[in-house]
């Protein structure tokens, strides 16, 4: 059996834990840069406001209903997520942290062996739910089923139907069949918008309809073996187990970091500062998983919705690192800035930038010496010193950098390129924020991670 614990409108719930005055009021949390609605309280859902709705479109409706609006506060959500996951992990043999607010649970054998829950995994699910609520204040729902796909589906129903009291256990074939009938095909885990449209056109409307298609049909129309597995999972036959958790053990195949800017930027140094910041973050993640990268991509985008902007809206440049793979921020930056220089069109307003690191490998595995790169001795004596300082990786320096930033907070030690241009002096008394940084007008305090921001009680 698998379980899926999912927090109810997690970001909103985090805000409410430390600001109980918003408990019964409509609350939304906005995405980076205060652009779109990314978390909605039940009251907001009842107003018909959709997930992802642009804030400017729903602003008046929210105001009319006395809704509280928050900018996203990832310091708070990350720290509360860690507490929630820790709490869940104490109750079950293994968990897979699927996202900031979701975890799969491995419950195999527990229905037979765990004494207080003999045959009653729903009781275990209720225990987890009350435990998480009591220790963190975060409400959750739990789905329990023989496969991950069904657990996800059970969770969805547990959230939707208040009578279930937050837990749905699909222990029998009858319950599974009932549950499949309740869920639209587009809401099945793994069915995206395009597949959903295709399936509906073929007369497959519910998860139950999808479970009835033949193996051959699924292979042909739902992306081969992936689709066939999905259908098997709906039948209660598990095709995938738990994947290693994100807390360090899950190695990514590629690492990217991008942001939409707070306002359009036309200055090269401002955009370079943004790229440097994203690259520093990506390289930090790369080092945290112990890898080096072979390929670097930089991209910059214009705002396609702004008037008089001509395509191409986005340009990218990719480079297989000529000096060999590295995890050194300074080395990567020297390449990134030349890539950015190649993409740069003077006089253009950019509104987004990003970097991607690909070809990740632990150092020393399958590394091949380049046929054409010159051995160090062959470099011209004049350039030698410069070559060494700009190209040589310095794992010790990077380790110290990461250690300092972990201990004293992210961004304590940065590359100078990441800093705001000196031509724009900081506003006296104002924050010294780089030009690219997004709007976050309504961000709540970092209640759990900053001494200055702790909850005040009278």
């Amino acid at each position, binding site marked *: 059996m698998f379980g899926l614990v999912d927090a109810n409108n997690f970001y909103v719930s985090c805000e409410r834990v430390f600001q*109980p*005055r*918003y*408990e019964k009021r409509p609350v939304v949390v906005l995405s980076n840069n205060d652009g779109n609605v990314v978390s909605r309280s039940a009251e907001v859902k009842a107003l018909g406001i959709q997930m992802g709705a642009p804030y400017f479109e729903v602003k008046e409706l929210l105001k009319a209903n006395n809704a509280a609006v928050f900018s996203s506060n990832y310091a708070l959500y990350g*720290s509360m997520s*860690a*507490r929630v996951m*820790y*709490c869940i992990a104490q109750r079950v043999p293994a968990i897979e942290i699927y996202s900031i607010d979701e975890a799969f649970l491995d419950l195999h054998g527990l229905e037979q062996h765990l004494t207080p829950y003999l045959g009653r995994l729903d009781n275990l699910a209720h225990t987890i739910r009350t435990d998480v609520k*009591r*220790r*963190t*204040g975060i409400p959750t729902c739990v789905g329990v089923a023989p496969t991950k796909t069904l657990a996800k589906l059970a969770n969805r129903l547990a959230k939707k139907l208040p009578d279930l009291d937050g837990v749905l256990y699909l222990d029998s074939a009858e319950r599974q069949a009932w549950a499949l009938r309740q869920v639209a095909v587009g809401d099945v885990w793994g069915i995206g918008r395009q597949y959903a449209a295709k399936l509906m056109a073929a007369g497959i409307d519910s998860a139950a309809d999808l479970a009835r298609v033949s193996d051959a049909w699924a292979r042909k129309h739902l992306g081969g073996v992936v689709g066939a597995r999905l259908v098997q999972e709906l039948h209660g036959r598990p095709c995938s187990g738990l994947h290693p958790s994100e*807390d*360090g053990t899950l190695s990514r195949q590629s690492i990217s970091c991008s942001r939409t800017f707070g306002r359009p930027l036309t200055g090269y140094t401002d955009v370079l500062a943004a790229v440097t910041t994203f690259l520093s973050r990506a390289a930090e993640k790369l080092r945290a998983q112990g890898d080096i990268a072979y390929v670097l991509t930089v991209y910059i985008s214009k705002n396609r919705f702004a008037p008089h902007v001509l395509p191409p809206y986005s340009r990218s440049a990719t480079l297989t690192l000529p000096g060999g793979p590295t995890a050194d921020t300074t080395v990567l930056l020297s390449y990134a800035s030349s890539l950015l220089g190649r993409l740069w069109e003077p006089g253009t307003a950019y509104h987004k930038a990003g970097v991607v690191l690909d070809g990740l490998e632990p150092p020393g595995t399958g590394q091949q010496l380049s046929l054409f790169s010159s051995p160090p001795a062959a470099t011209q004596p004049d350039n030698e010193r410069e070559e060494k300082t700009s190209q040589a990786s310095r794992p010790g320096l990077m380790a110290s950098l990461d250690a300092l930033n*972990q*201990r004293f907070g992210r961004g304590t030690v940065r590359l100078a390129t990441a800093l705001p241009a000196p031509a724009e002096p900081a506003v006296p008394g104002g924050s010294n924020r780089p030009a690219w940084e997004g709007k976050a007008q309504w961000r709540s305090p970092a*209640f*759990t*991670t*900053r*001494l*200055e921001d*702790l*909850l*005040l*009680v*009278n």
Partner: protein
Amino acid sequence: MSDVELIPVVATETPFFLPLFSCTVPAGFPSPASDHLEDELFDLNRLLLRHPDATYLVRVAGESMAGAEIHAGDLLAVDKQMEADHNHIVVAVVEGECTVKQLVCKGGTWWLMPANPAFKPYEIRDTDEVSIWGVVTHMLHELVPGKLAALLRTRD
């Protein structure tokens, strides 16, 4: 043929000190990423708190609990897991606002009692209006002005 040389294994007589684990965690939550050995410091969170992962730090504003030696600027460790009981000092939510008071049961009714005559006791009549956020298990009061005193100065 090769000779085998026997190397005697000497039993250690001297005591062996195991270092304590410590991690720098701002709100008492253990971060698996920051596990590292340190031989001198130990972690007050782990040492003192019953449920570090269910404990939150809050800061006191105001003097309504001055009689209980809880003053403005003090840090409180609040355990959300503990069941609140008679005489516990709690963080309660009264009409949506957080407040620190003593929970007292007098003749069948529950009260939130301030420890300062300038403030009025609050009788809990409607459980919809009042909830217990957590139980205060520890208090950190600075005797030598330091970080907390500095924080207090910057706030007002």
